[in-house]
């Protein structure tokens, strides 16, 4: 598809850009800087600040002939308007002559700065933005040295207004560009901040409850061109120029947002190097220049005081944990593993890096045991086969394309995907949202499908029926599935996001398989912008599958049967599921490797302190199978080792393999063994490409303070279907769902749960979810429950008292309970509910 082009001259430079390009962007592409405040390349132009004023000359048109007037040399006569014009609102025109650095334009912009500064406090020395402030930079570059305005007329306004728990507003510093308000309205669709009053009295307000509590609120501080908006985390924490920056990958969900960890060695942290803030790092194919607030504000766990710092062993006789040296600990581990004679199980969590998981798999393999993933959601093999192809970018999806989101609440589980899927829908992509209950994405859906919890896979079969017309699928088809199946089959590109809300291992396996089959049947696999994406709970669950570490159908309880030793890496099965504690204790020898003294670690014979993702390097593979690298930002405590390093040392001590010197070397092993990763190596992961829009750098006013990406965009793996033409997909008949006489309690994911990685955040505290049981009003009436009353829930011989909330969005027959808040519930269960009389 070729786009019509327009040529013009900007400050003597010939520029050719697509029709509709704004002058400010055309100039940027030609390397000519036009300063801006309100304009942002990701937002609609509004022309509010007037900082981008330029002179625009247009070819003179003869009114009678409608032809361009030419001079005696045959060149078009250029006519300049009487006034300067805003280059951010004016699309380019053929043959135009734009003067950015003419005397008039410079004077115009100088006066705008002078005007903006009339009420600016100029408290740069104490301002968080000082040092990376567009207004400060622009004043130095374009501003006048003196002001003609009267100091007495300066507005004196509130300087510490909490707009919410995370964002503070300094009313004096605000220059009324509305970038934050437009971001919340246009990009996030959560208009909880707005302007009130007019003129010099204009101010940003929130009247929402509980204030500026958007999951994306931190981004407004990046695009704020002054220090008006600051975060509770970084506010008065450090000066930007004192900070070192290390590239990292967010460890919180399967999106894999690229981040930059800003660190500083400081006296107030006893001379340690600490993370001062987490900033987004541009990767237009992953997170663009955004970051959700969990990624930004839940980093404190990595440098927590409660971290394990030395290996500890427990001699059974004494039953107490005793600190020891690494040498002793490894020896102890080796002895314990040897005594197990191959009856050994590796248990890993989805937070471990590819290198860790590979090393665990290798060790278990060498011992004659196996490694499993502590997770409930299945389907990783279908993502390997039919995942999205290289070159996939949700930003490319729009009119003519289709996105299906099934069994997932993206806004809670993977906020940046939610944002980008929503934007694809706004560009005209058909968005099918299928879930048992309404979610926030419904507001942007073109088609909403409801099903009863547990029958997600059945519904996909109904859609498949419309495509392959197999008789056996008749039973699953309905008018609704017919309609949406047509949307899917007609679309140019289709991406399917599947999650596991209300689904156990088997049901999520069926869902993944049927989604992959649907995609294959409708011709939407094996190329960019088509395929299956898993909304995993952890950052590297897909990587675990790729490394051969995945959950087993019977779960950990079944896998632990008959095992003499267990080796737990980056997981806390006993903490997640107390019933597993006794099973883990029954194992003769339990090794636990991790950051904290978890429930599982308390049951262990050896506890080995691992380095967190901020202290080491490694790679994660995100839900779209993009392998991305993170770097060490902080020197680890001497007593901590990287997971892969410990595992490699144990393997070497047992004569299984030689010890590997670095994570990069482990990745070389992975590439040699795993065909999917054959192109992956650390240099390849560090490869870069120029990205639009420009962020960071000298032109910080343009895109904001998100960091440019110099450390690599990662490598998106090729799905097997693209390589192996013989892969075929077949649907799986899902299990029949038995009629339930009781209620189905479904764990749902909330962004701010009370998991170890979140609860330690120093600023997210007030935003954390509170444990509640959500019940449908009719069910509540039937059960005789009241809102905010207490109920007793019984399942599998367990009892728990919970506070209940009546919520019309809960499907009838189900009760919802957020995960990681105190109810150890991995998957949906039948429960009995009894209200407790007051």
């Amino acid at each position, binding site marked *: 598809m070729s786009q019509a082009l327009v040529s013009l001259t900007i400050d003597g430079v010939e520029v050719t850009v697509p029709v509709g390009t704004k002058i400010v962007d055309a100039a940027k592409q030609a390397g000519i800087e036009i300063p801006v405040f309100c304009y942002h390349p990701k937002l609609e132009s509004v022309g509010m600040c007037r900082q981008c004023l330029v002179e625009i000359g247009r070819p003179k048109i003869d009114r009678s002939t409608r032809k361009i007037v030419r001079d005696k040399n045959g060149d078009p006569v250029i006519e300049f308007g009487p006034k300067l014009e805003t280059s951010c609102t004016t699309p380019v025109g053929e043959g135009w002559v734009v003067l950015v650095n003419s005397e008039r334009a410079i004077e115009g912009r100088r006066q705008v700065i002078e005007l903006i500064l009339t009420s600016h406090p100029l408290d740069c020395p104490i301002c968080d933005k000082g040092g990376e402030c567009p207004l400060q930079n622009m004043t130095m570059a374009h501003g006048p040295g003196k002001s003609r305005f009267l100091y007495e007329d300066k507005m004196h306004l509130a300087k510490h207004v909490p707009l919410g728990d995370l964002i503070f507003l300094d009313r004096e510093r605000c220059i009324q560009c509305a970038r934050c308000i437009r971001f919340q309205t246009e990009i996030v669709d959560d*208009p*909880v901040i*707005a302007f*009130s*009053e007019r003129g010099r009295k204009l101010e940003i307000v929130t*009247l*929402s*409850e509980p204030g500026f509590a958007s999951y994306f609120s931190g981004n407004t501080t990046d695009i704020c061109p002054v220090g008006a908006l600051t975060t509770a985390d970084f506010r008065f924490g450090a000066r930007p120029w004192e900070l070192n920056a290390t590239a990292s990958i967010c460890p919180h969900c399967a999106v894999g947002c690229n981040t930059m960890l800003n660190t500083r060695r400081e006296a107030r942290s006893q001379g340690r190097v600490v993370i001062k803030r987490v900033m987004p790092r541009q990767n237009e194919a992953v997170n663009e220049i955004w970051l959700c607030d969990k990624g930004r504000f839940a980093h404190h766990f990595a440098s927590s005081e409660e971290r394990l710092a030395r290996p500890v062993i427990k001699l059974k006789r004494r039953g107490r944990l005793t600190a020891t040296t690494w040498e002793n600990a490894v020896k102890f581990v080796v002895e314990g593993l040897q005594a197990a004679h191959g009856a050994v199980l590796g248990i890993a969590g989805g937070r471990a890096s590819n290198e860790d998981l590979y090393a665990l798999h290798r060790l278990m393999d060498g011992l004659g045991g196996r490694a499993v993933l502590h997770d409930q959601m299945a389907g990783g093999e279908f993502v390997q086969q039919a995942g999205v192809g290289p070159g996939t970018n949700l930003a490319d999806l729009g009119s003519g394309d289709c996105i299906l989101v099934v069994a997932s609440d993206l806004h809670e589980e993977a906020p940046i995907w939610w944002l980008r899927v929503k934007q694809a829908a706004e560009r005209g992509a058909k968005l099918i949202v299928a879930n048992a209950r309404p979610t926030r994405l419904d507001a942007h859906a073109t088609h909403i499908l409801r099903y009863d919890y547990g029958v997600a896979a059945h519904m996909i079969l109904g859609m498949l029926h419309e495509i392959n017309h197999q008789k056996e699928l008749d039973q699953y088809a309905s008018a609704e599935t017919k309609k949406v199946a047509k949307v899917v089959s007609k679309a140019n590109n289709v991406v399917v996001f599947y999650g596991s809300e209300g689904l156990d291992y088997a049901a999520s396996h069926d869902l993944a398989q049927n989604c992959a089959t649907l995609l294959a049947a409708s011709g939407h696999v094996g190329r960019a912008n088509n395929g299956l994406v898993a909304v995993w709970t952890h950052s590297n669950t897909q990587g675990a599958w790729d490394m051969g570490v995945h959950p087993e159908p019977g779960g950990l309880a079944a896998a632990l049967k008959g095992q003499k030793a267990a080796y737990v890496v980056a997981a806390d099965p006993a903490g997640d599921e107390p019933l597993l504690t006794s099973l883990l204790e029954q194992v003769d020898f339990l090794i636990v490797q991790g950051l904290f003294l978890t429930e599982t670690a308390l049951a262990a014979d050896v506890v080995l302190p691992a380095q967190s993702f901020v202290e080491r390097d490694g790679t994660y593979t995100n839900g779209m199978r993009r392998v991305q690298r993170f770097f060490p930002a902080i020197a680890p405590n001497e007593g901590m080792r990287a997971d892969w390093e410990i595992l490699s040392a144990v393997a070497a001590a047992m004569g299984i393999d030689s010890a590997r010197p670095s994570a990069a070397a482990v990745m070389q092993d992975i590439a040699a063994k795993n065909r999917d990763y054959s192109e992956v190596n650390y240099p390849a992961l560090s490869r870069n490409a120029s990205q639009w829009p420009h962020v960071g750098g000298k032109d910080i006013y343009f895109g904001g303070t998100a960091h440019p990406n110099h450390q690599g965009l990662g490598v998106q793996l090729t799905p097997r279907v693209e390589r192996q033409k013989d892969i075929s997909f077949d649907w799986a008949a899902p299990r029949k769902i038995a009629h339930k006489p009781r209620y189905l309690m479904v764990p749902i994911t909330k962004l701010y749960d009370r998991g170890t990685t979140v609860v330690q955040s120093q600023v997210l505290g007030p935003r954390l979810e509170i444990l509640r049981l959500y019940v449908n009003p009719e069910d509540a009436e039937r059960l005789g429950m009241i809102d905010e009353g207490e109920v007793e829930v019984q399942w599998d011989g367990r009892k728990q008292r919970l506070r209940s909330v009546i919520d019309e969005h809960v499907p009838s027959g189900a009760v919802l309970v957020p995960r990681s808040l105190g109810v150890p519930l991995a998957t949906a269960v039948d429960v009995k509910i009894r209200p407790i009389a007051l």
Partner: protein
Amino acid sequence: MLADKHKSEIKAILKKYPAKEKRSAVMPLLFLAQREYGHITPAALVEVAELLELDPTEVGSLIGFYTLLHDEAAGKYRIQICTDLPCALRGAEELAKRLCANLGIRLGGTMTNGLITVEEVMCLAGCDKAPTLQVQDADGIHYHENQTLGSAMELIAELMEKGSDG
């Protein structure tokens, strides 16, 4: 609750706009709320937002933008005196000052009987008949031109009588 008391009127207002563009009804609903309570109370703001599926912040932003929408309680009658240039040249500032002094309130204040508030406003587009003032009450806005202290006091006496009756 507005929705209980003015059910049919709200329904009639909403009916004027396409169901998908409910938000367009925000101004008439705010007028309704202001007529009912004299100003837009926080509860009314939230109610209007809920009726139109808007965020309360969006509604609040409008109240902040429009000078004739009030989020603070004041007298039943708001005497709004223009003090922009043409009116000022014809003595509006002096008028406002003396009127307030007569009523025993400061500019922007409300009489203890809760009936009269005197405010200073920007141009009312009555420059040829300066000084101009307007009275904002539940019925809307009423112009009073070529004002003097005497005529303004007479007007206020009328309003006080009217106000204390109803």
